[in-house]
């Protein structure tokens, strides 16, 4: 029994040692932006020497603890959970060999404080090259209105995307309008007021600007990381996504998707998302 316990302790130590080895980070810059107005924050930039920036499409930093040398916590409790942010890629392929850099965002320490005693957390890295099912590119997707888009990466991640046809829009409008009418009626509304409210609801939900597309997305495991259009020259157009009541609106703010464009869906999978623990200590403040 003692031997087993001893072996477990050894294995646990080895695992911990591996975690420490993974957490190698260098502090490259500290920016304490102090403001009497907006956007006050402390930003510590970390470099992960073992990971090439060219392999990382997006990243975020999840901080579990951060204290300065007065013992005050520097975690901004009012900020929401950080989202994955795109990692800028230089057009120069050699630059992709440089280590990836991430930003740890914290609250400003007091002026009298001279050091950040310790910051702990994890860097989440989205690395599409680690999984063949990371990117789904569907050519000439506009011709597939009314049908689910077919791609092995979407299927592997349990994602379904369907462009809604005009007939489907009319049917959805009726279905959602009826459901809303029932809800408003139960709240005591009736007559012209009721109809006016139902019309306002459906008009808002289905209102589109030129170039907008209405789609239905099923993504039970929240695998979709980002959606873009790719034009015939390979130029990537960012798509803004707005979800409401089971409908999703794709907008490009002015650029109307063309018949020869592709839909590009980037997907997060267990294989392409890596979390690297880190700890930095005694970071001198500028």
């Amino acid at each position: 029994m003692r031997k087993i316990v001893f072996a477990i302790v050894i294995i646990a130590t080895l695992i911990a040692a591996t975690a420490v080895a993974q957490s190698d980070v260098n502090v490259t810059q500290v920016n304490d932006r102090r403001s009497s107005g907006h956007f006050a924050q402390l930003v510590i930039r970390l470099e992960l020497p073992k990971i090439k920036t060219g392999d990382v499409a997006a990243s975020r930093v999840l901080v579990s603890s951060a204290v300065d040398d007065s013992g005050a916590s520097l975690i901004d409790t009012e900020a929401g959970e950080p989202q994955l942010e795109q990692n800028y890629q230089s057009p120069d392929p050699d630059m992709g060999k440089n280590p990836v850099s991430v930003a740890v965002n914290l609250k400003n320490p007091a002026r009298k404080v001279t050091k950040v005693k310790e910051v702990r957390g994890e860097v989440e890295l989205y690395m599409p090259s680690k999984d063949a099912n990371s990117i789904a590119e569907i050519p000439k997707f506009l011709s597939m209105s009314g049908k689910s888009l077919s791609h092995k990466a979407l299927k592997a991640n349990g994602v379904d995307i369907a462009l809604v046809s005009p007939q489907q829009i009319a049917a959805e409008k009726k279905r959602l309008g009826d459901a809303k009418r029932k809800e408003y009626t139960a709240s005591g509304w009736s007559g012209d007021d009721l109809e006016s409210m139902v019309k306002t609801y459906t008009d808002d939900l289905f209102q589109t600007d030129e170039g907008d597309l209405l789609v239905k997305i099923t993504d039970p495991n929240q695998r979709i990381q980002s959606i873009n259009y790719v034009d015939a020259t390979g130029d990537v157009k960012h798509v803004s996504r707005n979800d409401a009541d089971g409908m999703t609106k794709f907008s490009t703010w002015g650029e109307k998707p063309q018949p020869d464009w592709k839909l590009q869906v980037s997907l997060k999978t267990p294989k392409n998302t890596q979390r690297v623990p880190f700890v930095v200590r005694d970071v001198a403040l500028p």
Partner: protein
Amino acid sequence: MRLTIRGPAAHLVLVFVTTRRSKNMRAVALMGIVLSLSASTSAIAQSGVGVEVDEVIDNRMSDGMLTGSLELRVKLKGSGLEKASGARILVKDARDDRGTALAGSSDPPDFTPREYNSGTLNFSLKQPARAASKVHVKGTVELFVPSRDPAATVKVPNALSKLDQPLSLKGANVTLTLMSREKYAAALKARKITDKDIEQIRAEGKAHGASDKEIELAIGLAKAMEGLDSEPPEGAVLLSGKKSDFDRIYRVEILGSDGKPIDIGGRSTSSRGEDSLMTLQPSLAPPKDAALQFYVLTAKSKVAIPFEMDVQLP
């Protein structure tokens, strides 16, 4: 006369200095002493210009390629400001309460049109000590008031018919050339960065102790800036001259046949050494009889108002 007004916010300190020395100066000063601080707000409204802190950003950076700075945004208060077309802050001295000198040695900033950013002015100082809590700034607010000097406004009728010949702005001692597209293209070509220029950047970088990475970044930046010198769009008005002359031009307007200014969608000035090029891109092609109106920063058209203020650091 100087009256110090402390506002409700702890960091906000107003300092007020009269701009004109009149025969009644002594009487006003005496009155100021008698009435003390309680009368200060109305005194500002009547006879002077004051500076009020609007926002303070202490952008502190660790050692590296980027350096930190203290960015201040101020509002001007008082009467007479409506006559000013532009304003700027010139810092004479700035120190934090640890004695660190914060005034930079860079060129004076350009005048900011009064209609920009709700009339606020921005200026930069060096990064104060972390242990500092307050900064004291001494300087002047400079106003550009073209109505004070007839030579500050120069109109050149039928200017577009005078291409590639020097335009002398009489009384203002400024000479500029309105360029044809051909001459402008030739001037751009002459400004291309050569291998010799790059060698010079390398040599200067090394002399200043810059790393190879920093030097390559500087060369990349110079090339990127060169890329901005592109062929101007149709209808653009192109001017060339000495940088020192352009530094004295506050604004150039293109006047249509009706004598009214044509909206200018974009304007830019780029300099290489002492040579400068200015591009004005009107939203409508100017008529053949368009005039140019120059607003020149003459000595008489500028009013300097000293100020002092304390700034509480965030």
